């Protein structure tokens, strides 16, 4: 099979300072709601300006008001995105609401020229344009965008760049609160800490096993008891044999104790050694 990188919407961007960041890039479907919101906002903005013009310039003559509104429409149509993305650091109101931001391909903020150009070039991405005649309006003006070209271009590159993005060296990323420190998961069942003491001290946890344990403990609270047992068993069963623990030990509890031993070894060492008689860790009762 050809060596193809794992398919994902996350890409690594290396800044000019040689620092690597992982970003989730937004494709056409993630951008669509933001675009529609901006379109609505632009229409509302134009409507208010139109009303204002009618009230102020209307008395000077309808021709003047029409001319002014055409100029305003031209300005909004071509520069709405560019102005907002310059002013709001890569965001328009729609993008801000949907948590998107435009960056350069090396992860730095975009400049005014890039912001304006990528928005002007949206016209190329919206090709082919259709005539109003398809809506039974007898005016042969090609203004209905299909965006098929833009979507096709986005589909063929990993960064989901449309033509405007490729020309300007930009991409759209999803802003995520990636700076959360989740810390060590809390395991309420004290038997896990007790069971951890029975894991042989010479057992070495590999990186991949540590990752599997961390993922398991992170997700287990969302799963039913049966499902926890089902997931944990394939790994817990051979480990129980290896550690020479009773075979009816709860698989879930074993993985939790292994997690504690791996990530919270100090706490395990300091865990109370005194155990109640009915509080044996070797029980198939699931931990909570």
């Amino acid at each position: 099979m050809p060596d193809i990188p794992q398919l994902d919407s996350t890409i690594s961007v290396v800044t000019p300072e040689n620092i690597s960041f992982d970003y989730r890039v937004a494709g056409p479907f993630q951008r669509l709601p933001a675009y529609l919101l901006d379109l609505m906002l632009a229409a509302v903005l134009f409507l208010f300006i139109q009303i204002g013009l009618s009230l102020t310039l209307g008395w000077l003559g309808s021709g003047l008001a029409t001319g002014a509104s055409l100029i305003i429409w031209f300005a909004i149509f071509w520069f709405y995105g560019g102005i907002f993305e310059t002013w709001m650091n890569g965001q328009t109101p729609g993008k801000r609401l949907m948590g998107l931001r435009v960056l350069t391909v090396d992860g730095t903020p975009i400049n005014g020229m890039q912001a304006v150009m990528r928005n002007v070039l949206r016209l190329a991405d919206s090709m082919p344009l259709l005539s109003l005649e398809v809506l039974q309006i007898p005016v042969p003006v090609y203004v209905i965008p299909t965006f098929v070209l833009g979507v096709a271009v986005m589909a063929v590159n990993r960064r989901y760049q449309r033509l405007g993005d490729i020309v300007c060296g930009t991409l759209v990323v999803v802003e995520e609160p990636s700076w959360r420190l989740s810390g060590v998961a809390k395991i309420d069942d004290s038997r896990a800490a007790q069971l951890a003491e029975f894991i042989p001290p010479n057992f070495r946890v590999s990186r991949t096993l540590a990752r599997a344990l961390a993922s398991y403990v992170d997700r287990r609270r969302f799963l039913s008891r049966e499902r926890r047992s089902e997931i944990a068993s394939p790994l817990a069963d051979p480990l129980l044999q290896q550690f020479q623990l009773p075979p009816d030990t709860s698989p879930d509890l074993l993985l939790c104790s292994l997690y504690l031993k791996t990530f919270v070894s100090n706490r395990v060492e300091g865990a109370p050694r005194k155990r109640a008689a009915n509080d044996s860790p070797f029980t198939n009762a699931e931990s909570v």
Partner: protein
Amino acid sequence: MQLDKTRIAIRQRGVLDILDVSLHMLWIYGRPIGATFILGAAAFALLNHALIGWMADVEYAEETPWRYLWYMSVLVYVEAPLAAAFCTAYLGRVVFEQSCRSGEIMSDVLGMWGHLLWGFVVLRGIGLVWLLVLSVEHTEDPAYGVLALLFFLMLLVFGLRASRPYLGEVILLERNPLLRSRSGGMTIGARSQMLHNPNSSELIGRGLGGALICTLFLLAIVATCSFVSGVFFGAWDFGPILVQIFIPASMWGMAMFFCVVRYLSYLDLRIRQEGWEVELLVRAEANRLQTRNIG
């Protein structure tokens, strides 16, 4: 097979992210996805032409053959999951970097062919739609009765498809039996119920959203086809090339795209509901442990 080394990053995704990744996946794996999809869809496309091709003929068609387009939409919509069987089997293998020889994919599908026919032709109404379409007389009479019946049948199929969208994936990839054996075990119906029922309202919402996106996307593609037909063939109106070739091909193209979307959504549902990504990691680690112990 290394369960934690997949061709697609296994993690929870939103609907829009799934649509984006599907689009990119269609580009990366376009050739095998296209080939396996055509393998399933070609027979249905020919059958549809045999069933309703006459409606597009000039002597029956109006200026725009709406009746033909409506029947074609219904047929493609109900047949799409069955036509996508080979493609789904391929996706099920390629994600885990399993070998994807055509013989293996064929045997994956043909081994479950009876289940698929029962699930889709009988329960999901494809057979009924074929019978209804066959009953239409070859005249200009639009047969409003059949049109209305087809409309209600399509609503019913939509409801079934929206509430249990991953029946094809359950049949082909989980390979449960149709009937409960003496020793017990999970049947297709029970598995499907277990997977779909806890999320039914969300799945119906996704189904409606998917239908809207599909319609808009299809209209954009048909409009582009019309543009291409106008530019290259000088035929700007709804001519035979556009109606009988480009539009059905666009519909099948959308069905192929949504086959990928459905597969990724199925993975996503299993991840959210069953902690599937964790299971893959744990199983992969168990395999490693076993290999180490044997070594």
